């Protein structure tokens, strides 16, 4: 069976290479049969890779430890769910999942575009096949998941217990849907450049792909953060770890891209910028894919030694050279048709929003690769820690937040003072009220004060927008307010979906600011029956329980939590000891409310003295981060929902494109 898997991998490489060659030649010679053959080849790759993946999955389910990859990430005692998810527990399997997702996306693109975008398609398929070929080369020659050990160990090494949670099971695939999803708009962008059809057809065609990729990158970030929060036991959710940064960067540039394409669609400006952004986003998602599993950033030496690092550098080099070359070649066709006139116009506020997003991305990138750079340049490794990222990004994020409030309200071209007064009066008043309220309640720290005020301002503008729009519609049509509201959103899904996403972002920032500026830590040691205080909470150490099986020893402390004298919850933080890993595992327990989380860990228990040491974190508002993500999810659903108006605009864009080519 492993031999069959390896065979499938080689076969898929050959077919994908054919697909690349056929589509490229087909595009050059305008040969329909070649193009069709290339497309069919790509569909065949999807089928073969599905079989290959099924094969690897079977190896996991059958405990075939003679295969090195299976032996490294699975073990007999693991539940079936985690045997399945061990598929992407390591580098080779992750690559296979990546290329499988890519081939499925390619197939969907081909099936969607059998009658449309025919002049773009050969280039699209060629680009996607090119990426597929690269990943298949890696799988075949450097990281073969079917590689045999040459002997059969009695048991596998198993998956690290910290990773054995459903969250970690779905976190990588979500992130991959995002990373790989970016490849589709990238392929269309390249196709637009190569075919010379650089209007906004490629943007409108891939709008939902981009949103989809962006959303899943976000969901991946959310799941990763949430997992760290409930599993790692340090009370936080984000540490500016290179792996986290790697997923954040393409998300940031994709966010910039989602905004700037609107300028191109409306004003036919920023065309080069959009091309550059999608190229950048794709490069960052490739960078992220490799960083996540190979840990290349930890040292230049590791980077040079692990074959993956070299291959990554080569591949990124090829993508960049290729993309920039054809972009430069097509520069004359990418002339802007509009002009930025006014400071206070939506165009320029979008431009500033883009600069800020890219600026944040650049700062994160710089901080992430700084150790490698300094080692390469000065021979000594210098790192920058979380303080760097926080200091740089906080003011940038505030500026971005302010723009989030301002931007949608400023009119296109040039906004009048009168108009500004009208739309800003209420939100600004609301923000001022929040500011004064916070001052009265004793908040004196400037940074969170400004941040919360801006959050209130953005929320105010969005609510005001929804209200104004519905009122205007109500007046014009005579519908009831709820009906007017529903129709308003229904007819302008993209706009109001976008506003909803902004609300989600604000909620996330509220949670981040609350939990980073007002976090309280307490450490206390108790006998049974004793109590300690943590902020408004009293924690009474009631009892302990323990159990043991062949997999692990479990030990749990039971604490009664009361707030202001009233019983609130029972918390059960614990420590498990996984025998096969010779490693303890902290089991966090959280009393979670909208106001704050009481996050409790058991650090130590001494059976002789009966003394238990606990650490508690009070994390204000942290729940709003997860709620914010759900709001973003909802808003994105509203924005991607198919919409006759968008379809009409796409049809019109195609028509314009055909005319300008003819």
């Amino acid at each position, binding site marked *: 069976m492993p031999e069959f898997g390896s065979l499938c991998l080689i076969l898929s490489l050959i077919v994908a290479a054919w697909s690349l060659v056929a589509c490229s030649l087909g595009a050059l010679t305008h040969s329909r049969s070649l193009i069709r053959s290339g497309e069919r080849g790509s569909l065949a790759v999807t089928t073969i890779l599905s079989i290959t993946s099924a094969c690897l999955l079977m190896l996991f389910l059958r405990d075939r430890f003679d295969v090195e990859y299976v032996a490294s990430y699975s073990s007999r005692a693991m539940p079936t769910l985690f045997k399945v998810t061990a598929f992407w527990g390591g580098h080779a399997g992750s690559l296979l999942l990546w290329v499988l997702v890519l081939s499925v996306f390619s197939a969907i693109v081909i099936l969607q575009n059998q009658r449309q975008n025919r002049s773009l398609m050969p280039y699209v398929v060629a680009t996607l096949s090119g990426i597929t070929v690269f990943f298949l080369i890696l799988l075949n020659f450097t990281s073969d998941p079917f590689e045999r050990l040459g002997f059969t160990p009695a048991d596998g090494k198993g998956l690290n217990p*910290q*990773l054995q949670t459903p969250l970690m099971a779905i976190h990588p695939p979500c992130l991959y849907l995002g990373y790989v999803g970016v490849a589709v708009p990238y392929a269309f962008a390249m196709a637009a450049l190569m075919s010379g059809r650089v209007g906004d057809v490629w943007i409108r065609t891939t709008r939902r792909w981009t949103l989809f990729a962006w959303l899943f990158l976000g969901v991946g970030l959310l799941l990763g953060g949430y997992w760290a929060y409930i599993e790692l036991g340090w009370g936080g959710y984000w540490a500016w770890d290179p*792996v986290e940064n790697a997923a954040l960067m393409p998300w940031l540039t994709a966010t910039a891209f989602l905004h700037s394409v609107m300028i191109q669609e409306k004003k036919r400006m920023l065309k080069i910028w959009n091309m550059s952004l999608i190229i950048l986003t794709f490069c960052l998602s490739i960078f992220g894919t490799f960083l996540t599993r190979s840990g290349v950033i930890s040292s230049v030496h590791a980077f040079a030694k692990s074959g993956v690092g070299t291959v990554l550098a080569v591949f990124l080099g090829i993508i960049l050279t290729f993309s920039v070359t054809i972009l430069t070649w097509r520069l004359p066709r990418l002339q802007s048709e509009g002009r930025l006139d006014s400071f206070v116009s939506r165009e320029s506020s979008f431009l500033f929003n883009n600069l800020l997003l890219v600026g944040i991305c650049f700062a994160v990138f710089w901080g992430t690769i700084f150790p490698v750079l300094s080692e390469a340049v000065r021979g000594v490794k210098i790192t*920058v820690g979380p303080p760097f990222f926080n200091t740089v990004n906080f003011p*940038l994020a505030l500026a971005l937040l302010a723009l989030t409030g301002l931007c949608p309200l400023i009119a296109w071209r040039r906004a009048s003072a009168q108009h500004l007064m009208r739309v800003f009066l209420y939100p600004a008043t609301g923000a001022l009220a929040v500011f004064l309220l916070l001052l009265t309640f004793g908040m004196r720290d400037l940074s969170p004060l400004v941040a919360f005020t801006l959050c209130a301002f953005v929320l105010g503008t969005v609510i005001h927008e929804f209200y104004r729009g519905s009122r205007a519609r109500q007046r014009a049509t005579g519908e009831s307010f709820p009906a007017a509201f529903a129709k308003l959103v229904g007819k302008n899904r993209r706009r109001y979906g976008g506003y909803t996403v902004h609300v989600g972002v604000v909620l996330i920032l509220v949670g981040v600011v609350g939990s980073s500026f007002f976090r309280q830590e307490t450490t206390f*040691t108790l006998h049974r029956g004793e109590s300690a205080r943590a902020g408004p909470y009293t924690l009474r150490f009631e009892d302990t329980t323990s159990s043991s099986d062949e997999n692990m020893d479990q030990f749990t402390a039971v604490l009664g939590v009361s707030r202001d004298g009233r019983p609130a919850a029972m918390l059960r933080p614990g420590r498990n000891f996984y025998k096969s890993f010779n490693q303890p595992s902290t089991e966090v327990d959280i009393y979670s409310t909208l106001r704050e989380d009481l996050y409790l860990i058991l650090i130590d228990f001494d059976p*002789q003295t009966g003394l238990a040491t606990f650490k508690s974190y009070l994390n204000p508002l942290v729940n709003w981060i997860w709620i914010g993500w759900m709001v973003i999810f909802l808003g994105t659903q509203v924005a991607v929902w198919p919409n006759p108006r968008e379809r009409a605009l796409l049809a019109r864009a195609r028509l314009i494109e055909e005319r300008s080519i003819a």
Partner: protein
Amino acid sequence: MSLRVSPKIAISLVILMAAFSILVALSFRGTMVYYLTVSEFLSHPPSDLDGHFRVNGRVVPGSITRQTGVLGASFQMTDGNEKLPVVFRKELPDTFVDEAEVVVEGNMREGSFEAHTLLAKCPSKYESQKKANYSPSP
């Protein structure tokens, strides 16, 4: 250029870029930390960044000593050549076990390295290229 902008906007862009560069440079200053191996740290610690270091190595098996009632542990870490005694007085991550790869941040104090942060690498998140060492079943 395809992006035609008015001089006013162009100037403000330049100012923004400058502000951004200054922000990055300033943020960098206070947070730069040397990242060294145990041997590098012991032989010639550079002294230009206000005496703060990040050192990586592996936990020497059997060297971890914990005291009841006191948080953290003292242990030795090594890069294969030299050994460095380390004291850490906060709660330890789960991944801190014998032979774990650790990164500590802090400085020397009274003959041992006093760390204020300790990271221990999660074993299967970063996959090294080395072959796994199994014992073949009989």
